């Protein structure tokens, strides 16, 4: 990270030099619009470079992460980086929820909350059962950005009920691939991704961690935890069959992670 800051500073000084040169040589001859155009081109270049720089930086700083896919959307790479200003600049491209600024909404929703536990099936992942997770694990694009925002403001533990080592490897791989695991701000330290082999085991994991907020896609876990956790969110797609749990007291129902975190 420090190396990156030096590169960034060098680049800035270079830019300043270039502009002053232009000003001396042809300040009057160059049309004002021309300078603006040049500035725009340079700015774009700068943005592109910063995106790449972070991507290169990411795997080295986190343990046992496989090489990141170059097709990975640049927003997620930016989200994992420390430069808050750059992250803010790239936010408007993050998704349909841009109007509400996810960072601000998440910060507002999590005011006073220091520890969050999140069961990933059906919330962060498309798949919701251990059997499905044997085959594949797909991280929901919008949800990954939100988890990064949550990880910036609170201590986050991710957990997943899987049936065996294959399921665990599939899920861990998907989380790593999405750039969610690592030591940077906006990432979850890899050892805080927890796995269990039974549904009841998940309840024990949450109880041990004593979070201020637990988010889950499974109705039974939420109802089992009702007496032990201050705030619970049950994330279920609208129209999910057999949902008998009602929003009450410390339980909130939400159709998506975004809705659970106060985004429209």
């Amino acid at each position: 990270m420090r190396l990156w800051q030096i590169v960034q500073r060098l680049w800035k000084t270079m830019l300043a030099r270039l502009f002053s040169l232009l000003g001396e040589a042809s300040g009057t001859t160059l049309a004002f619009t021309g300078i603006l155009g040049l500035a725009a081109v340079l700015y774009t270049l700068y943005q592109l470079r910063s995106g790449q720089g972070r991507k290169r930086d990411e795997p080295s700083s986190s343990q046992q992460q496989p090489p990141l896919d170059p097709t990975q959307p640049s927003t997620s790479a930016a989200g994992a980086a420390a430069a808050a200003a750059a992250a803010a600049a790239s936010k408007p491209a993050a998704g349909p929820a841009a109007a509400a600024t996810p960072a601000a909404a998440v910060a507002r929703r999590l005011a006073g909350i220091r520890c969050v536990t999140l069961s990933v099936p059906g919330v962060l992942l498309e798949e919701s059962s251990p059997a499905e997770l044997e085959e594949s694990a797909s991280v929901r694009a919008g949800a990954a950005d939100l988890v990064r925002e949550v990880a910036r403001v609170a201590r986050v533990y991710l957990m997943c009920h899987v049936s065996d080592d294959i399921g665990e490897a599939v899920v861990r791989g998907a989380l790593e691939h999405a750039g969610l695991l690592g030591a940077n701000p906006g990432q979850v330290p890899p050892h805080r991704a927890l796995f269990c082999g039974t549904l009841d085991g998940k309840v024990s994991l949450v109880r041990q961690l004593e979070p201020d907020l637990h988010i889950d896609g499974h109705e039974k876990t939420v109802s089992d935890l009702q007496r032990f956790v201050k705030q619970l969110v049950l994330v279920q797609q609208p129209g999910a069959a057999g949902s008998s749990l009602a929003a009450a007291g410390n339980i909130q129902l939400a159709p998506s992670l975004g809705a659970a975190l106060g985004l429209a």
Partner: protein
Amino acid sequence: MSARTRLFKELKESARNKEATGIELVPDESNIFQWRALIKGPTDTPFEGGTFELAISVPEQYPLVAPAVKYRTKIFHPNVHWKTGEICLDILKNAWSPAWTLHSVCQAILALMSDPAADSPLNCDAGNLLRAGDIRGYNSMARMLTAEHAMSEGMSQG
């Protein structure tokens, strides 16, 4: 033999055993009745890689009465209280015998780490995971908390 004489004898012996067992026993500089032990998480357990500190308080009647031992490092184990570090181990309670030494007590605690007793747990969540046969969940949580509390690299990750 007075407690003091016996403790000095144990101190000499534990220095000799340190290499073989990895157990480091250190008495308080000014008080031979207060000890600190450092034990290494046994291999093939979720505690592997961690170093755990025990606080040992020896009574005046030692070795007729058992020492009071508790974890000072946080550990996720069914027979250790998560918040206080209290250990549920028969030899520290009714099964104590003067034949035990501080060093062998540490060995018994290491054996407990490898072989947790899930019934009558002090940590219900650890006990429930084991009783439900959820070894994956137990190992996952114990490994994570070992990294957080018993390894210096883990602690720096806040």
